[in-house]
């Protein structure tokens, strides 16, 4: 958040323009009604871009104060992104009550483990605690998105094009933030312009993915509620299926062991 060179200003302007295009697409196609938290995140990003650009151009303000305000708005944007992620997970999995119940617990476990590990790296130094905390949150968001997609793939839960695009955009941006903060920032410490630009570039890529999906979005993509069965029926068949799987596996094991014994 320093005085950006010309190329970075262009990238900044491009980012704001793309944010505006996506915002308008969400309004025009009424996607904002289906994903209100993502829409709020988008609005906050747009406002942040305009506000921070305005602040940097105000001559009489203390640079440190501007820097603090900029990071404060960034914290708010990250918080809204986390909410948008929860909303996306709910949209994909919540209609499958059992799966959602299991997924929620796993998501919380994954997120807590990732954030705890990242905070462990701070070694009790509060200034690192906050910055590492943000990185931990970003990494946790990426891990939760990937877990959600793996869940959806395993259980063959349909994920429509827009949901995929939102997941890809959020995940790639978060991963890039982590790599940028952990690696590139240290390697390219002498060239803050480069890693700032790379950060913007990652966000532009996410915006393009989202715009593409929003353009193709149709209301028909939303799937209906599935049929349900009583939990006790699931419990009974589930344990029988497991018993049968165990037997099949045990037979193979026996096959292998007997063969080894015979050799």
């Amino acid at each position, binding site marked *: 958040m320093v005085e950006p060179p010309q190329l970075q200003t262009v990238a900044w302007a491009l980012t704001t323009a793309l944010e505006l295009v996506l915002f308008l697409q969400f309004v025009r196609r009424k996607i904002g009604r289906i994903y209100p938290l993502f829409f709020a995140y988008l609005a906050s990003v747009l406002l942040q871009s305009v506000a921070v650009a305005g602040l940097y151009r105000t001559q009489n303000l203390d640079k440190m104060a501007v820097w603090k305000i900029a990071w404060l708005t960034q914290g708010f944007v990250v918080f809204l992104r986390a909410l948008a992620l929860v909303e996306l997970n709910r949209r994909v999995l919540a209609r499958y009550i*059992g799966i959602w119940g299991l997924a929620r617990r796993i998501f919380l476990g994954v997120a807590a483990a990732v954030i705890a590990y990242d905070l462990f790296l701070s070694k009790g130094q509060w200034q690192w605690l906050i910055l590492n905390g943000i990185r931990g949150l970003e990494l946790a968001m990426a891990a939760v998105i990937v877990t959600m997609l793996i869940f959806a793939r395993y259980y063959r839960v349909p994920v429509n094009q827009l949901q995929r695009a939102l997941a890809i955009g959020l995940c790639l941006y978060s991963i890039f933030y982590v790599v940028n903060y952990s690696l590139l920032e240290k390697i390219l410490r002498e060239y803050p312009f480069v890693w700032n630009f790379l950060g913007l570039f990652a966000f532009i890529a996410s915006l393009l993915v989202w715009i593409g999906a929003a353009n193709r979005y149709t209301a028909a993509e939303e799937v209906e509620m599935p049929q349900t069965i009583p939990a006790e029926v699931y419990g009974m068949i589930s344990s029988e299926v497991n018993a049968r799987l165990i037997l099949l596996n045990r037979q193979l094991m026996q096959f292998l062991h007997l063969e080894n014994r015979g050799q």
Partner: protein
Amino acid sequence: MNLPLIFLVLFAILLVGLLAWALRPPAQQIRPALDVFEALRQSRHASRMSQIFQALQPQDTEFLGRAGQASLMQTIRRERRTIALNYLRQLQEEFAMLLEISRVLAVMSPEVIAMEEMERWKLSLAFAANCAFLRWKLRLGIQPFSGFTLLSNMATSFARRLEAATTRIAEATVQSAQSSGHPNENPGSF
């Protein structure tokens, strides 16, 4: 850069790989209108394991070698190994079918038992590894082994157990459908 930080970056990179994998469409498409009870009642390949083991026994073909028909013996053994490989493929399909049933059920259930899901996940990994190992052993040539009776008995007893279980489940489904006031003409068809 310290080691924990390297792990963190590696984890982030691993997430990119997992993201790409998770976005790929699954190799097997979901079976439309999978009938769980019908699928559970289908004949089990595991129950024919004893015949397959028997066919793979070298004693079954040794007499050809003693009679001077070594090439015929080799041909028969090769063909029987091919049959065993096909049988292994069928076992894998049976396993995949059971996993498919469990997925269909989990998607429709209001409550999913985490431990059972985890158990299935571990089993599927172990089964895939065992199958791959066994397939290679079969391709390289099976050695003499014994104890087929035990396996055959296991399969038979399990077949009986499963038969009883599916009947119990079908009864429970009909009962729950009746008690909820939504009689289902075909309770097994989800």
